[in-house]
């Protein structure tokens, strides 16, 4: 049974997300811009506002994990959120989930009801990638304060993709057959992100005070929401740390453990849990 949540407390915790929003016509890469601004703030002895969101209409040097390209023309939601790392290590595991959940919820709210999450946080629609997220740590050089930079790229109204992404990427406009209000979409996404970061802090507070977590059977509320939105469990997958260039093995997904790790059953019955890496669906 799920516990009643204190929604006001969650909103309070999450309210710093978007407390500062920078909007740019174009940036090479939002994360690099954020790093420079954090370092500049530290250099002039000013605290950088946790929850700052950097948005750009287009980005010219966007990238995904490893050296993968990410195309960021006008029409998408491109940017990053800066979060001063005040979370305990256990909660930090859920940061990538928080971003993917916020995107999937927003896409569904705007009509993309078939969107799902693929572990860890890829948002898919019809098997193609609609949103991707990358979380990078950054330690500012003056005082050593650590920040989590949550990079996001969501294909909303953009419809052209480079050849290498044409078969694997899709936008919400292509799914719906119509444009959506980009500002409204971005606002809802950031509101969902704020709520999810509120949950991170709220659940951490409950755990530290010895109370059970708020999901069913004491499960983390974000994990529960992830399971509601994902179609990963039960799928046959190929796993790899860098699955595109170095796939390692095939398995069936049994579920998620309490930390968000993926529980996999290999063909010979051996069960293992992966806490990092990525998957692709087979069939």
């Amino acid at each position, binding site marked *: 049974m799920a516990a009643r949540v204190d929604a006001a407390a969650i909103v309070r915790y999450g309210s710093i997300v978007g407390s500062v929003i920078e909007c740019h016509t174009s940036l090479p890469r939002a994360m690099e811009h954020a790093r420079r601004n954090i370092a500049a703030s530290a250099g002039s002895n000013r605290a950088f506002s946790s929850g700052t969101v950097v948005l750009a209409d287009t980005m010219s040097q966007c990238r995904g994990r490893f050296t993968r390209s990410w195309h960021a023309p006008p029409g998408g939601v491109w940017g990053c959120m800066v979060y001063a790392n005040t979370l305990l290590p256990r909660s*930090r595991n859920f940061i990538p*989930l928080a971003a993917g959940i916020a995107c999937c919820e927003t896409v569904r709210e705007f009509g993309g009801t078939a969107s799902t999450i693929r572990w860890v*946080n890829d948002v898919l629609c019809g098997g193609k990638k609609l949103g991707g997220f990358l*979380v990078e740590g950054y330690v500012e050089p003056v005082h050593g304060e650590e920040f*989590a930079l949550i990079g996001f790229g969501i294909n909303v109204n953009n419809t052209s993709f480079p050849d290498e992404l044409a078969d694997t990427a899709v936008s919400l406009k292509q799914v719906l057959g119509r444009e959506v209000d980009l500002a409204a979409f971005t606002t809802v996404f950031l509101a969902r992100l704020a709520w999810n970061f509120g949950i991170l802090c709220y659940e951490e507070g409950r755990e530290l005070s010895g109370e059970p977590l708020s999901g069913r059977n004491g499960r983390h509320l974000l994990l529960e929401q992830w399971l509601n939105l994902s179609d990963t469990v039960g799928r046959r997958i190929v796993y790899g*740390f860098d699955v595109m260039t170095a796939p*390692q*093995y095939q398995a069936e997904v049994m579920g998620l453990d309490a930390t968000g790790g993926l529980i996999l059953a290999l063909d*010979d019955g051996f069960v*293992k849990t992966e806490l990092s890496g990525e998957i692709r669906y087979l069939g």
Partner: protein
Amino acid sequence: MSNEIDFDELLSKYKSDPFDYVDVFAIHTGRVLFKVVEGQEVTVAAGEWLQIPGTTLYEIDRERNMKTITAQTNGIVAQINTALDGQFVEAGEKLMTIKHPLKKKEIIENILKEVLSLFHAPESAKYFFAMDVQSRIDKKGAKAVTIDPGDEILTMSLMKRDTPIYYKGERGVIHSVYFKPGVSVEQGAPLIGVCAPEKLPLIQKIITRVKADWDSEH
């Protein structure tokens, strides 16, 4: 790192007793049931993806949640606390000791771990070298790469969250690398062993001595 190493004492220690004695503890509170006996040979997980489980050492049952614990070390069960069989134990209680025969390479590694400055994994995660360090290693080899305190040397990857790891230790060269990219490392396990450049000859001397004095592979 000390220059004062008594090689003869170290080597005679390993020659007279070329084994590691690895204690096995209860992973949490619960009722234990031993699945091995003293003198039994045990093996670790095997197979390309370590998909063949190691020898089951014990089962532990807490609130009807039964867990099977398998060997993490090859060897022989040297001692087992049989009085605990079927009993409720506390987390961390010592259950048995595995006597693990050391190979020459392991002896060298053990000695090096005593003399190198070890940099440990801050969290259980997958690690890879920072791009700059990796490109220097690719060009010159790890032993030619010098790192300073404050250098970003590694990236920790956990749940699609990549965190830079900064070196906190004495200036030195990366002598030993204990992790493989894409393979999970437990929190606290050594990632790299660092040696001050002027002390590299000392390290080489250790390796040469062990290789010369240790003929068999055990």
